[in-house]
């Protein structure tokens, strides 16, 4: 019996078992498949043992009711993490004026080290992951506060190197505790650091990196292809996070430049730049959706279709909002949505046929 590498893998296996059991019952009812009582008992016993072991080792959701409760726990964990992190910041700001400099330094470093160690200890005992997620967010917030406040206390000139340190701790928490939120935090820090470095290498002050959104394309491309070079056997959910983050960064950048050509590096006039990015967005959205369908990357399809529709609607607004009567404008929008649905349905049919080996 192979042990799943992570809670995600164990949950996927458990879900597949439940689906199999439901389908098996249907097949038996329809007379398509009949297992002997011994075979049925063996299969049921095997599945029961698996689910029991996964429940003990990974605290998975064993049924639909558990799944729904888990969704609530995830929300509670996220909100609790954000609230506790904010509390950490405000607590320090409330009292730091009455502390000497050595005391401030000791509390900041101690809090960062202590909360990190506590997170790893909780992770060793928390099979559900919700408490680990909460503790990891607080630990990350403490480390961000640590370096930020040291900079303020000693009047240090702002530096992008802090982003690298924050990214490193976020990645350690992500890969050490199987936390997608920490992975996103780490990617955000790496993106910001890369853009800041690109800006400073071009002679510009690094803080202004966000005034040239094109800086985000390079780290987005790197993040998209990174899963090809990193083994994620133990973390099967992570490659989707890399791709999702990369696509969001790339498409949001394109969206911004499609309406703010002034922020581009390109030496053309604003209208040309904005028009070029709008067309790039259409083509990019379609390409990403196609790629997602081919590779079975659901996040690519979701992001590609979403931004394709956003760009299409924004172009329609730009062309016709002023010149068309409002009823006609919204009619065009609605009909556009119908056309998109028809196209996607056709695409879905052709994908289903090709999966079944039938020429579409």
């Amino acid at each position: 019996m192979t042990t799943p590498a992570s809670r995600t893998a164990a949950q996927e296996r458990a879900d597949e078992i439940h689906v199999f059991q439901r389908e098996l019952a249907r097949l038996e009812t329809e007379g398509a498949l009949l297992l002997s009582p011994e075979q049925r008992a063996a299969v049921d016993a095997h599945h029961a043992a698996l689910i029991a072991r996964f429940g003990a080792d990974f605290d998975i959701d064993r049924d639909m009711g558990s799944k729904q409760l888990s969704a609530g726990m995830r929300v509670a964990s996220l909100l609790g993490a954000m609230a506790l992190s904010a509390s950490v910041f405000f607590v320090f700001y409330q009292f730091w004026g009455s502390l000497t400099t050595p005391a401030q330094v000791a509390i900041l470093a101690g809090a960062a080290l202590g909360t990190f160690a506590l997170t790893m200890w909780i992770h060793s005992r928390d099979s559900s992951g919700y408490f680990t997620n909460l503790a990891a967010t607080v630990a990350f917030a403490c480390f961000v506060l640590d370096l930020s406040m040291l900079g303020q206390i000693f009047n240090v000139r702002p530096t992008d190197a802090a982003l690298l340190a924050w990214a490193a701790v976020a990645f350690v928490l992500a890969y050490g505790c199987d936390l997608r939120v920490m992975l996103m935090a780490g990617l955000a820090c790496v993106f910001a650091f890369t853009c800041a470095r690109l800006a400073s290498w071009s002679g510009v002050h690094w803080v202004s990196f966000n005034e040239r959104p094109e800086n985000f394309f390079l780290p987005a491309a790197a993040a998209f292809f990174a899963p090809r070079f990193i083994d994620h056997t133990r973390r099967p959910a992570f490659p989707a996070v890399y791709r999702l983050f990369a696509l969001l960064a790339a498409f949001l950048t394109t969206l911004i430049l499609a309406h703010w050509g002034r922020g581009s590096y390109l030496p053309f006039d604003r209208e040309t730049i904005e028009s070029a990015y709008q067309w790039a967005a259409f083509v990019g959205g379609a390409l990403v959706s196609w790629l997602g369908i081919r590779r079975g990357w659901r996040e690519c399809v979701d992001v590609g279709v979403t931004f394709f529709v956003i760009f299409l609607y924004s172009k329609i607004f730009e062309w016709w909002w002023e010149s068309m009567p409002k009823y006609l404008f919204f009619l065009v929008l609605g009909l556009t949505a119908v056309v998109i649905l028809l196209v996607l349905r056709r695409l879905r049919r052709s994908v289903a046929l090709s999966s079944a080996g039938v020429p579409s």
Partner: protein
Amino acid sequence: MTRIRRFTWIGLGVIAVANAIALSGAAWNRSGEPESTLALTDRELRIPDSNPDANRENTGLSVRLEWCAQPSRLRPTDDDLREVGVNCYERVPRWFDRERLAAFGFHLDLAPTATGAAEYYNRQLPRPAFVVLELAGPTYQSILDEHRALSATADSVAAAHPDSLSRRRAKTARERLAWFEGQASRLFAVDVGSDLGDLRARYPDRAMYAIVRGTVRPRIMFPENGIVLGEIRELEPAQIQVPKEFRVAFEGLLPRSSYVRQKGIGRAQNREFTIAFGKRLEPWIAGWRKNPD
């Protein structure tokens, strides 16, 4: 070693190393002789409005350097002289010319009067620079002399033509002179450059001239005349933290918003603060005393 233990040691190591680098960098900045040391009063150190009295959620105390620059107009008018030292918002000094801008690598080839020139210049992103701050030096003295001349002229006009307008103008000129002599900041930005050694060689007096880091960018001023000047956007760091042991020195000093300053509220408390700038040009408060003057 288990995976959890390995990740724990890696994470703790990263946090410890990051803190060590930050603290050792700060220690190195403050080691040895400071790069410069200025004796500033609360005329040059401004408490931002967002401090303990205004914001109970943050008990930290910080101050900002209140620095000024000579107006960018080529021929100063009465209005410019009145503005200098009143709010010190001028950030495009007259001496920050094309030659200095070119040294930072800005693109200056498009004529300022050409179509699209404003966007061409304003699109360029700020670049890091070294800024020379002069304390109570020739720049402050020359502006003080101009204020005195202005006040003397206004008094003469009021004596010769004692109508209400002349008397009012003379009174205003006297008030502004008094304010500039006793309340206005004496700290002026007088030069910028990309080479610290070169600037220090030109301004060797480390008790009058502090060199700090900042950011600059080009701005089109007076497009009809085709003038491009440089703007000093901000200094780094923007604020100086006040350690607990020096907080007593700032008691009784009000946040110095422009309104407060213009109305002369919260007169300078005659305290002198020693601000040292270290090897990384990062400042700290090294001491304070009551100014016997």
